[in-house]
């Protein structure tokens, strides 16, 4: 213990820690008080997993999807870590909402804890901004189109055009947008979050535990100990949250789609915590044209802004000193009403988006790609096992081929296969690609090509050999994909066909 004393004499850290842990819990420790600490646990988990993701993630249109794809398929435990971060966002927001509801029910926002509550509302806003900015970073189809919708909503508000310009650096969503969202998501918002959590905890400690919702002098209640009694319950609750997250990360990995392609049609699915807002917007969109501008303003600014404003002002509006549940019908009634409306709006817009996705999948590939994306995480062999919702094998292979193409071929041949005159051949209508006998194109993919004149034109760049870099399954899938995309209509190729091709 000499070391401890030595450090204590020079830093005071030991007494600081002891002092922090030595705290009365009026009425005794309770699992009801664990929501706040579980939220902090989720936050720490987000910070830790986020830090490890930045060892691989790179924010730019050239690398955001590629580096995320690398995390998924190449980094040891990469899929687990990114899935933990994905589910961590859900856990943190869900726990934060539960913590807030509990504080509302308990009347713990009342004097002298008004500022603790105000800081808490700001923490909610920051956490939602973190969720929004993180959604864009993987730069897959859903990331791109969901963020497109979010930025356009922001732009439609009075003064929102400025927000849009700043977020996208004047132009559409592009590489600078990813940079800005990255800066917000990784630096500014976490820094603000940590500072405000520090303030939140300091205010909490200044006023002490709020205790149960009763109108009694808290000092006259039997007092429980924060350490170890309450801490154990906090740790147990955090462990339960952690266990659920680990299971979800393993058995339901974060979805990851093909690379963002603005030319494709795609119906994005918002994060669940924005579904209520999205529902408001859908309702506004269905109002008669005459009132629609007002309805839109209500849905995008007045109602969301009003809810946040009301939350911030709540401790100053609700001057009723009582904390007994039976004496606070208005606040509790309004809380219940707001919850029912939020859940109703979320269900409404969630079901509507699912229906639209299902309808559009009848006609085109994008939704099939979205379906397959959920299983892409299982690795490059997913081509044969992907489509779990009843598509044919060929559809699954071509979805897989699309992702192989996006990852390996599109940087030269372009997302639409158009190539670059004189450098990279156009694949659409390319006689070598659509030849009835696929042996030629198979050889090109396997062993590369240089200097060949295709359709009377020559090309400067060298086609690399992919044998050894990609599996035969991947190569077969991508050949099938390019032979059946952009108007090409040639037969599919299997890995078995490739085995017959020799150098």
């Amino acid at each position, binding site marked *: 213990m000499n070391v401890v004393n030595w450090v204590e004499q020079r830093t005071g850290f030991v007494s600081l820690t002891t002092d922090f842990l*030595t705290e009365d819990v009026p009425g005794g420790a309770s699992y009801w008080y664990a929501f706040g600490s579980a939220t902090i646990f989720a936050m720490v988990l987000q910070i830790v997993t986020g830090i490890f993701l930045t060892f691989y993630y790179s924010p730019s249109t050239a690398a955001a999807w590629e580096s995320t794809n690398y995390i998924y398929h190449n980094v040891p435990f990469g899929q687990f*870590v990114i899935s933990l971060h994905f589910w961590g966002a859900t856990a943190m927001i869900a726990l934060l909402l539960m913590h807030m509801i509990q504080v509302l029910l308990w009347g713990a926002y009342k004097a002298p804890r008004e500022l603790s509550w105000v800081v808490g509302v700001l923490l909610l806003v920051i956490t939602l901004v973190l969720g929004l900015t993180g959604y864009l970073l993987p730069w897959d189809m859903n990331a791109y189109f969901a963020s497109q919708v979010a930025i356009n909503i922001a732009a439609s508000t009075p003064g929102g055009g400025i927000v849009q310009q700043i977020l996208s650096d004047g132009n559409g969503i592009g590489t600078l947008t990813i940079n800005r969202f990255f800066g917000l998501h990784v630096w500014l918002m976490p820094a603000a979050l940590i500072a405000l959590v520090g303030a939140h905890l300091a205010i909490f400690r200044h006023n002490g535990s709020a205790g149960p919702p009763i109108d009694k002098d808290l000092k006259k209640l039997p007092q429980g100990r924060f350490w170890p*009694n309450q801490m154990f319950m906090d740790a147990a609750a955090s462990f339960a949250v952690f266990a659920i997250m680990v299971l979800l990360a393993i058995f339901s990995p974060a979805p990851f789609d093909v690379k963002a392609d603005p030319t494709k049609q795609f119906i994005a699915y918002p994060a669940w915590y924005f579904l209520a807002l999205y529902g408001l917007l859908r309702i506004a969109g269905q109002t008669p044209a005459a009132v629609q501008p007002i309805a839109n303003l209500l849905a995008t600014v007045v109602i969301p802004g009003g809810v946040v404003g009301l939350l911030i002002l709540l401790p100053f509006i609700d001057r009723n000193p009582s904390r007994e549940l039976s004496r606070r019908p208005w606040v509790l009634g309004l809380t219940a009403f707001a919850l029912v409306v939020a859940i109703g709006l979320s269900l409404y817009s969630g079901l509507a988006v699912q229906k639209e996705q299902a309808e559009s999948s009848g006609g085109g590939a994008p939704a099939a790609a979205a379906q397959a994306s959920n299983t892409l995480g299982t690795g490059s062999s997913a081509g044969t096992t992907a489509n779990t919702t009843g598509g044919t094998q060929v559809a699954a292979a071509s979805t897989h081929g699309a992702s192989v193409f996006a990852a390996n071929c599109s940087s030269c041949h372009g997302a639409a296969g158009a190539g670059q005159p004189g450098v990279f051949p156009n694949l659409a209508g390319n006689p070598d690609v659509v030849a009835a006998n696929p042996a030629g194109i198979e050889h090109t993919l396997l062993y590369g090509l240089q200097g060949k004149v295709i359709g009377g034109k020559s090309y400067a760049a060298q086609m690399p050999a992919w044998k050894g870099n990609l599996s035969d399954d991947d190569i077969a899938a991508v050949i099938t994909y390019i032979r059946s995309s952009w108007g090409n209509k040639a037969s599919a190729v299997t890995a078995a066909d490739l085995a017959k091709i020799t150098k």
Partner: protein
Amino acid sequence: MAEHEAQAYKDPGTPEEQSRRTFLANATLAVGGVIGLVLTIPLVGSLIPESLISPDKVAAGKPVPLPKSGWDSVATKPGTPVKIDFSFQYADGYFPPAGDDQSVWGIKMTPEQTASFKEKRPDLYKNPAGEVKYDATEMGFVVFSPICPHLGCRFNWVAEQSKFACPCHGSQFTVIGEKVAGPAPRGLDPLPLRDATGTAQVTWIQYKSGTPDRIIVAYN
């Protein structure tokens, strides 16, 4: 932090309560430890490169062709090193394979240089990296990596002195890569060369710098 009153801690409680608190304290620490361990394994594991886990699984280098123009200029100047620029497909991290530009020093050895090569560069033959075959000398050609074996600078050919000289720390080498001055721990590193039906092909290898032995760090 100021001293504050905590009522709950004034009464130590019954022995049962004390032992229960000890249990809760230990259980809390144990829960924290389990969470920490479950997190540490995948998080630290995600940073460990495959080359550390299974070094023998690192793909061996592939010979890549040197451009004919560069090779021709080597052949026409026996005994004089010529820098040959070339490019090969290389997948850097998560980027799709792309052209990576490198250069090597190629030398068409005079018959005398070829004859004394084995004697003057014994380090090439006693080395554990003997898997690198120097059939280059049988062809009368040698190709040196442009990386100084001292600390990885790019060295120059100084024609007036007929020496390779590294500008960073002053190491000097003869035309066949023998160290003659400076801190470099070994002579210049040759790269495997082969004649593939009239095309010269080289295998790009990075060797560990600063060690007397030639240790392979990475292939192309």
